[in-house]
C-alpha cells in the first residue's frame, strides 16, 4: 500500500478537501478559516480551492455560527464548524447541547444533524486557564453527540472523513501540540469507522488507556516502560463516544490491571466512565484498583513549572503502573 508521511495538520486538511470535493453540500465555517487559512493553518488552501461560498469566515460569535450549522444541517447541508479552539465552544454550549444534540430526537426523527464541530482542544503551551479547557467528558455525557479524539495523522484523516459522512453531530477534538506531528497515511482514499479503539502496543502486565496527546506521549516513551521492566498494553480509544469497551475489556481480562490517562480533570472525567465500564466488565479479572492519571484539580496556570506539575507526565504514568502492579 502506497503511503505518504504527513503531519496531522495536513491529514485533517486532506480529509476536508476530499470530502468537500466529494460532496457539494459540505462546507467549512468558522473564524479565520478562509483568508487566514486557519488560525492553526488546518484549512490551508481551502478558500482558494472552494471559494468563499464553501469556506466561510465568521465574526466572533460561536453560539450563532454553530447554531447556523444546525440550521444548515436541518435544511440539507453538511457543515463543518470549526471552533478556533474548543475553549470557545463554551459560549456555544446551548446550541451544541440543546440544538445540535437534541433536534433529531425532539423532531421524532425528522431532522438529522449531519454536522462536524472540530478544532483543537486541551492545553497547548502556557496559554493559561481560559485557553486550556478539556471538555470531552461534557460532550460525551450528552446523548446525541459522537466524540472523536484522534492522536495520529492516520486516525485524524480517516476519522474526520467518517465524521463528515456521519449523519449525526460529531464533536471532533484535535490537539494543537499534535498538528505538527507526522505519520504514515495511505495515499489512496480511506475512512476509519467511528467507535473502534486500537492497541498501540501489546503487553501483558498492565493495560494503559489514553487518548489524544496522552496516547502520543506514552507511545514516545514506550522505551521507558521496558526499561522499568513493565510490559504495558497501550490502547487508544480514538473515539470517546461511542466507547469501544470490548477492546478495553479484552485487554484488561488479559493484564488484570488498568491505568487510565487523560489530560482532563479527574472528577467525572472521561476516565471515570472508562473505569466504571472496565470495573463492570472485568470485576473479577482485576487484581488491583484501576489507577487514573489526570490533570490536577486546578485551572491550568501560566507559569511553566506549575503548568508541568498540573498535567499528566510520563513519570506519573510509570508510577501508576507500578502502583497497580504493587511494585511500589
Amino acid at each position, binding site marked *: 500500500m502506497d503511503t505518504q508521511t504527513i503531519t496531522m495538520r495536513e491529514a485533517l486538511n486532506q480529509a476536508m478537501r476530499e470530502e468537500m470535493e466529494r460532496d457539494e453540500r459540505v462546507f467549512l465555517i468558522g473564524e479565520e478559516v478562509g483568508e487566514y487559512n486557519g488560525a492553526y493553518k488546518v484549512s490551508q488552501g481551502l478558500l482558494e480551492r472552494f471559494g468563499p461560498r464553501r469556506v466561510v469566515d465568521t*465574526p466572533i460569535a460561536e453560539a450563532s*455560527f454553530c447554531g*447556523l450549522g444546525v440550521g444548515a444541517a436541518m435544511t440539507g447541508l453538511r457543515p463543518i464548524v470549526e471552533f478556533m479552539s474548543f475553549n470557545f465552544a463554551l459560549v456555544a454550549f446551548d446550541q451544541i447541547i440543546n*440544538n445540535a444534540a437534541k433536534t433529531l430526537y*425532539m*423532531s*421524532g426523527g*425528522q*431532522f438529522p444533524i449531519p454536522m462536524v464541530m472540530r478544532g483543537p482542544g486541551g492545553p497547548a503551551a502556557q496559554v493559561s486557564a481560559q485557553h486550556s479547557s478539556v471538555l470531552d467528558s461534557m460532550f460525551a455525557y450528552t446523548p446525541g453527540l*459522537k466524540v472523536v479524539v484522534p492522536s495520529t495523522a492516520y486516525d485524524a484523516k480517516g476519522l474526520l472523513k467518517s465524521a463528515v459522512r456521519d449523519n449525526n453531530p460529531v464533536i471532533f477534538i484535535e490537539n494543537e501540540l499534535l498538528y505538527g506531528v507526522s505519520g504514515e497515511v495511505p495515499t489512496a482514499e480511506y475512512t476509519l469507522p467511528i467507535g473502534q479503539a486500537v492497541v498501540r502496543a501489546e503487553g501483558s502486565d498492565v493495560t494503559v488507556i489514553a487518548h489524544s496527546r496522552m496516547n502520543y506521549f506514552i507511545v514516545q516513551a514506550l522505551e521507558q516502560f521496558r526499561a522499568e521492566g513493565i510490559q504495558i498494553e497501550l490502547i487508544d480509544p480514538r473515539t470517546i463516544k461511542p466507547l469501544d469497551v470490548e477492546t478495553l475489556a479484552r485487554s484488561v481480562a488479559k493484564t488484570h490491571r488498568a491505568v487510565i490517562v487523560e489530560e482532563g480533570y479527574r472528577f467525572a472525567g472521561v476516565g471515570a466512565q472508562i473505569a466504571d465500564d472496565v470495573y463492570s466488565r472485568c470485576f473479577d479479572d482485576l487484581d488491583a484498583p484501576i489507577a487514573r492519571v489526570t490533570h490536577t484539580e486546578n485551572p491550568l496556570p501560566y507559569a511553566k513549572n506549575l503548568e508541568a506539575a498540573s498535567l499528566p507526565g510520563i513519570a506519573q504514568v510509570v508510577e501508576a503502573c507500578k502502583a497497580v502492579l504493587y511494585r511500589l
Partner: protein
Amino acid sequence: MASLVAAPRKKPDAKPDELKTLTAGSLTRRQKQALDELGREKLVEMYRRMFLIRSFEQRCEQMYQQRKIGGFLHLYMGEEALGVGMLSAIQPDDYVVTSYRDHGIALALGLSPNVLMAELFGRVTGVSRGKGGSMHFFSKEKNLLGGHGIVAGQIPIGLGAAFTARYLESERVSLTFLGDGAVQQGTFHESLNMASLWNLPAIFIIENNQYGMGTAINRASAVTDFTLKAQGYNMEGVTVDGMNLLDCYAAMADAVAKRRKHPAPLLIEAKTYRYRGHSISDPATYRKKEEIERYQKVDPIQQVKSLLSELGWLSEADAKQLEKDVRQEVIEAVNFADRSEEPPLAERDLHVLAD
C-alpha cells in the same frame, strides 16, 4: 439610592398607541391591494385558520385541565393575525422556525390539528411522534424547523436556513419568529449581524406581545421600539400592526417579493398581544383587566370577520357554518389523539442517533 428598576431616559410611549381596526370603508391603499392579491377564497381560508387556532387552543386549555396534555402549554391566542397573515405570504418551500409558542405557527402553515393535538397528547401519531410536545412541533413536510424551548435559541437556526437558501442559490427565504423577550438574548445580536453581513434572505419577526413572561418590555429592554436596533446591523426594519391580518400579510408579501431575487435580511416588529398568561400555569396578574380588554376590542379574528361581511365575502350563515365546521374539526382532532397509541417503548431509544 435610585433604584435599579428600568428608567429609560427616553420614556417608552406613555399613553398606549390607539389601536386601529379593519373596516372596508377605511382601508389603506396597501390593504386594498392586499385584498386584491388575496381574493375572497384565500381571505376566507385565512379567516378559517385564525378561527382554527383559536378553537384549537381553547380546546387545549380544556384538555390540559383534563390532564390529557402535560408539561408547559404556551398559547398563541390573540396573535392569530400575525402567524396567519405572514405565513399566507410565503411559499411552501420557505423555511420557518419559531419558539415554544408554536401552535399558531404550525396551524397557520397548514398542519392538521390531528397531528398537533396528538403531539400534545403525547401520541406516536403526533407531528413529532409525541416526543416533542407543545414546545417542539417540527414538520419536515412543511419546513417547520421547530418549536424551540430555549429563548432565542431558534434564531441561529433560522440564520442557518437562510444560509442554506443562499448556498443552494434557491429563491427561498427563511422566517424566524421570536419574542420581544428574546431580543435581549445574545444570539439575536450575533445572528442579525451575520444575516446582514452576508446578505442572507433571513426575515426576523419579533412577535412583540409586550411581555416576556411577567416582564413588560420596558422593564427588559432599553428601547421599546425594536426597529431602532435595525440600523445597528445595517438592516431594514419595519413595524407592523400584529393584530391586523392584512398588514401582517402585506408586510411579509412585500418583504419576500424583494428578497427572493435579491437576498437581504429584514427585521419586522409586529406589535401584538397574548390573551392568556405566559403559559397555562401563569395567572398573569401583572396585567390590568383594562389592558386585555383594549386588545380584545380589536380582536384580530373579529376584525377579519366583520371585514368579510362588510365586503359581502362571507355571509352570517356561511360564517356560522365555517365556525361550526372548524369546531367539529377540532373535536375530531381530540378524538384522533384519543384514539392514537402512545409511542411504543422502543421509541425511547429511537432517534437518539441517525443511521
